[in-house]
């Protein structure tokens, strides 16, 4: 049974009349890696700052293992933060930076030395203890910031977009390293990011936020494969939306008209009736590009193709103007597999790989959140 470590209930926060968090509830389990994902301005950073104690909520409460922390000062909370721009103390050596938290606890000198050495060894920086922060690279500074935060053995580690200042390759390395650290230390990680790829690859659970509200809470797989609404579907990964209409409803299935194709699909969780509009969601990798002579599928033509190494990504314009993204793996038997621009094709998908959402149309706001 998973135990709740940090419990946020009915949190609201306004800044100058603008609602940033709107009655948010969230339970964070002990030992998990949970990610707060959302576009800028969705309230994820505010939520983190409320947990750290740098801001106080207008309403609601924060409880850590049964203890009310809502109005506790940051220095008295058993959790630590890794800041976006590291916030290393520039006038102190790496050693003194990491030792700072332990000195505040008035630990004996020997213990401080030993624990700082351990923490630096953990992030492979034991040879840099005497350096000043500005003598280190971005990735090294990041590791010092992590060592400084975990040396106090917090119950919970808050990470505010800690990898956003690093280049792509270093970011990938640090992602793996953070996961390793989290496993080894057994500390609960609350990770804030706007990078959905990062969120999916690192987390045990993902919280998708928008306008200070939880849009979806689930495992990366749930969030990606079974998005709760159009916002999540658009924000997490690339998605094709095909408008459909319910033709008939059966026991475990429904027949849907999509671009004139009659497809029998699994019946969704929400209520459906005949004639109801639906959104059929398909990830680019669910799309099958067929020969124009094929009986199945919707006709269109290739307007763009991108060689991605392991996949061939293409953009197809259907005859009615709908844009479709397709991502296909290379076939071992056909190494020359490729498309010509303007080549006529037909588009279909593998049965059962679609995901259905009620037929609300996407608002402008949701479209712009995509960018």
């Amino acid at each position: 049974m998973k135990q709740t470590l940090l419990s946020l209930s009915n949190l609201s926060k306004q800044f100058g009349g603008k609602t940033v968090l709107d009655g948010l509830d969230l339970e964070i389990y002990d030992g998990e890696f949970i990610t707060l994902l959302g576009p800028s301005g969705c309230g994820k950073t505010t939520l983190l700052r409320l947990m750290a104690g740098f801001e106080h909520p207008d309403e609601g409460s924060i409880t850590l293992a049964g203890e009310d922390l809502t109005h506790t000062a940051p220095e008295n909370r058993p959790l630590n933060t890794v800041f976006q721009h590291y916030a290393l103390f520039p006038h102190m050596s790496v050693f003194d930076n990491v030792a700072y938290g332990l000195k505040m606890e008035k630990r004996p000198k020997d213990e401080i030395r030993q624990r700082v050495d351990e923490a630096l060894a953990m992030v492979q920086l034991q040879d840099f203890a005497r350096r000043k922060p500005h003598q280190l690279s971005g990735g090294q500074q990041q590791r010092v910031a992590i060592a400084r935060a975990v040396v106090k053995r917090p119950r919970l580690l808050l990470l505010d977009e800690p990898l956003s200042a690093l280049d792509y390759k270093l970011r990938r390395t640090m992602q793996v390293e953070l996961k390793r650290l989290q496993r080894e230390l057994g500390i609960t990680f609350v990770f804030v990011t706007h990078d959905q790829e990062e969120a999916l690859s690192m987390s045990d659970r993902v919280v998708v936020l928008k306008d200070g509200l939880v849009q979806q809470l689930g495992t990366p797989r749930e969030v990606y494969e079974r998005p709760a609404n159009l916002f999540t579907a658009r924000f997490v990964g690339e998605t094709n939306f095909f408008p459909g209409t319910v033709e008939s409803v059966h026991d475990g299935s429904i027949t849907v008209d999509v671009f004139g194709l009659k497809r029998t699909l699994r019946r969704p969780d929400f209520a459906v009736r005949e004639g109801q509009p639906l959104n059929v969601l398909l990830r680019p990798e669910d799309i099958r590009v067929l020969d124009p002579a094929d009986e199945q599928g919707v006709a269109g033509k290739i307007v763009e193709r991108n060689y991605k190494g392991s996949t061939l990504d293409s953009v197809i314009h259907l005859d009615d103007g709908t844009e479709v993204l397709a991502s296909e793996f290379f076939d071992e038997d056909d190494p020359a597999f490729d498309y010509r621009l303007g080549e006529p094709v037909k588009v279909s998908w593998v049965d059962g790989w679609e995901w259905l959402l009620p037929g609300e149309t996407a608002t402008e706001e949701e479209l712009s959140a995509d960018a």
Partner: protein
Amino acid sequence: MTRWLPRTYLTLIYILLYVPIVVLVVFSFNESRTGYAWGGLSLRWYEALFNNRAMVNAMWNSLWLALSAATVSTVIGALTALALHRYQFRGKKLLNGMLFVVMMSPEIVLAISLLALFLLVGLQLGYVSLLLAHVTFCLPFVVITVMARLSGFDESLPEAARDLGASDFTMTRTVLIPVIMPALLAGWLLGFTLSLDDVVVSTFVSGPSYEILPLRIYSMVRVGLKPEVNALGTLLLVFSLVMLMLSQWILIRSKR
């Protein structure tokens, strides 16, 4: 033509700037009594200077005044800068603007108004009135120096310190002050120099009980230029150079 013109121009400017200083230094070692003729190398004017009790006394008074005025204005100025940087409050813009008014207003205006104020409250003119006056005109310079440093200050540093268990006070002591230390030192030195060579305001607010160096020199020069003044000027020059090098050294060290 295009090559030598800028060089000559630059050389002339530097000659204009430095020749008087060089003359002052050279003539401070002049044996001759007149200021125009060279009479051989001598330290007699330095000797005369140190035997002039009134002069030595004025020098100590000036140093003590500059030291205390710079220290008091650095403490008040740093706190003011922190308040202006950290908090949003009514009248903040006004307070900020008023600092510039003090800095920009003619010294004579400040001098007269301070004198009027001291007479009004019945403060006896002397060390205390000088100190208050000097702190007043040093303050805006300190505030502006410290504010400039704070504007580039990473706001997450205090938060990081709090997050690691430091109280607000401990954070200020262990993170905030060390980080803004170069600005505090620069502000202090600025205040020290301003106080040391102020004539206008000091003329109005000093009393017979506390004579300071610039006023002493001024009164000496009025009855005729004595070579002692050259010796004094040379000593002050060496002193300022040492202070300047010290401040540069501290700045470079703090950046490392």
